[in-house]
């Protein structure tokens, strides 16, 4: 990552302090880049003002693509490319295509969702994950603020974070 992004990283000991800090920081017109916690913190999404994930829409799109592909595949194979009579049914016997259609729907929907999640989480092969503070996987809650996206200076941000209960404030460059 050569973009050289600068982040102010606040470290918090306690989830309730983090929750109130998020409220306070957002209250003073600061955009929070992201929070990292060792475990899911109830209500954090609401405090951060996240909109609901749109992954379900992606899942539906992948799913319906799977249905269409499966039926096209079977209709082409069984009806056009090499017509076969199986069990005395028509070449294109829709009811007997349903189980395969269903399975491909589920498969593409699941794989597509996992893939989408990997892409938006930057979890790709050789991708270098941004670790703001390694302790967020252990016992610390981490709040990252993108300097470029805020008009406030890093000193001001430091003061706000300190004020809202951060036990430690670092600067991180990617």
């Amino acid at each position, binding site marked *: 990552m050569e973009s050289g992004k600068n982040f102010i990283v606040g470290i918090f000991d306690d989830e309730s302090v983090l929750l109130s800090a998020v409220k306070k920081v957002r209250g003073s017109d600061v955009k929070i880049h992201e929070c990292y916690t060792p475990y899911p913190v109830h209500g954090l999404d609401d405090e951060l003002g996240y909109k609901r994930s749109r992954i379900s829409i992606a899942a539906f799109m992948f799913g319906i693509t799977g249905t269409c592909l499966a039926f096209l595949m079977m209709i082409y194979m069984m009806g056009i490319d090499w017509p076969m009579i199986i*069990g005395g049914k028509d070449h294109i016997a829709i*009811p*007997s295509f*349903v189980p395969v259609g269903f399975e491909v729907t589920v498969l593409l929907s699941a794989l597509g969702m996992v893939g989408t999640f990997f892409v938006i989480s930057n979890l790709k092969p050789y991708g270098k994950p941004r670790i703001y503070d390694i302790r967020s996987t252990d016992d610390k809650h981490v709040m990252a603020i993108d300097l470029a996206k805020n008009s406030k200076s890093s000193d001001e941000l430091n003061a706000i974070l300190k004020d809202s209960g951060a036990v430690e404030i670092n600067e991180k460059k990617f």
Partner: protein
Amino acid sequence: MAEEKFEFTSKAKKTLSILAIVGIVLFGLGTYFASTADHSEEGGHAEEMHDGAIMSDGNDGAHVTEDADQDHFEGAEHTEAGHGGEHAGNPSWLKRIYANLWINNMYFVGLALLGVFFVAIQYVTQAGWSAALIRIPMSFGNWLPIGLILTLAIFFFGGHDIFHWTHDYLYDVNDPEYDSIIAGKQGYLNTPFFVARMVVYFVVWFLMFRWIRKKSLEEDLNGGESYFFKLRGISAGFIVFFAVTSSTSAWDWVLSIDTHWFSTMFGWYVFASWWVTALAAITLITVILKENGYLKIVNTGVLHDLGKFVFAFSIFWTYIWFSQFMLIYYSNIPEETVYFIERLSSDHYSIVFFVNLILNFFFPFLVFMPRDSKRHTVFLKIVTIIVLIGHWFDFYLMVTPGVMKENGGFGLLEIGMAIVFGVAFLFVALTGLSKYPLVAKNHPMIKEAEHHHVF
């Protein structure tokens, strides 16, 4: 917490009474039309029969071996012709009334039974989310004694019209109508055992329901966790009994109408249909009560979960439906396919066949898929009403072709009777609901229900 009690207002009663009168008028009109149509078509009937004869003549030459099978399938029709004089075969419109009584009876008995099943499931799984609305499905059980009376009455008056196997001559080797297949089922399908089973189902269901309700009401007065564990035990017992009897009652009351036909999926199929119906009814009543200012404790998260329940079990019903259809379609065994041929080759039933799928699968599946539609009362009401109507058609499709053969109809008679039954059921359930507190306030998990949060 203040005690909340549902008040069955005289205004609501009046609305229901007006609806009932509308239903009775529609039913009367429908019956009148059906009976006059019957008379004017008397000549037509003879012609139809003649056509049938010609067709079977054609078959005789071509498929000598199949003829034996064919005879079995057409046994019912032959019987009517052969024993017409002896039994003074009921006119078509009367059969239609019996068939409809049976459809509605099955539908609402299932609703009552599955209401109790819902309660039992909640206690056995120690579910917290539903604690606040548990009294609504519990009130459905009040219909069970009425269900027993209706089932017995319809069976005794219309049994011969609805159930072909109740005719004695089928079991008499010397009778020309002797049916070896049905005779082979006599060990299970005979009137005394059938009635005994029916009574046992209802009595045990009702007693278990009474027991559950008694303990739940005692919990309201005394509180404490002991009632919860007691209820869990009773519910587990109920579910074990239900597991067997939901299948056997489906065989008895619905599957045996098509006596020759059988399907190992059928018990599950009827259960699935009943279960979706009950879930939709619970959701609809909860939403309506909430809109009228009751059940403040039930939050959007709980409604969302009810919506998910209806959504999930609509898919489950479709899965069972398809499993039954697909295997029969694919294996193509005449004994089995006859059931679907009967429903798909007739113009009348084939419409219902696809309407059934659209109302019970495609509609709830597509409308309930987005999260928001399960959280808005408007969508909840629309979908549950559609599902309730759809599953009525499901029972219509299970019962009518077996009873009426190709002469089934749908009109004012059906609509009127369904309304009358629906009003009667609501009357019984709501009266029951108004007798005890609406919220089980001492349920140990009532707090969990109050703060239930769904993403």
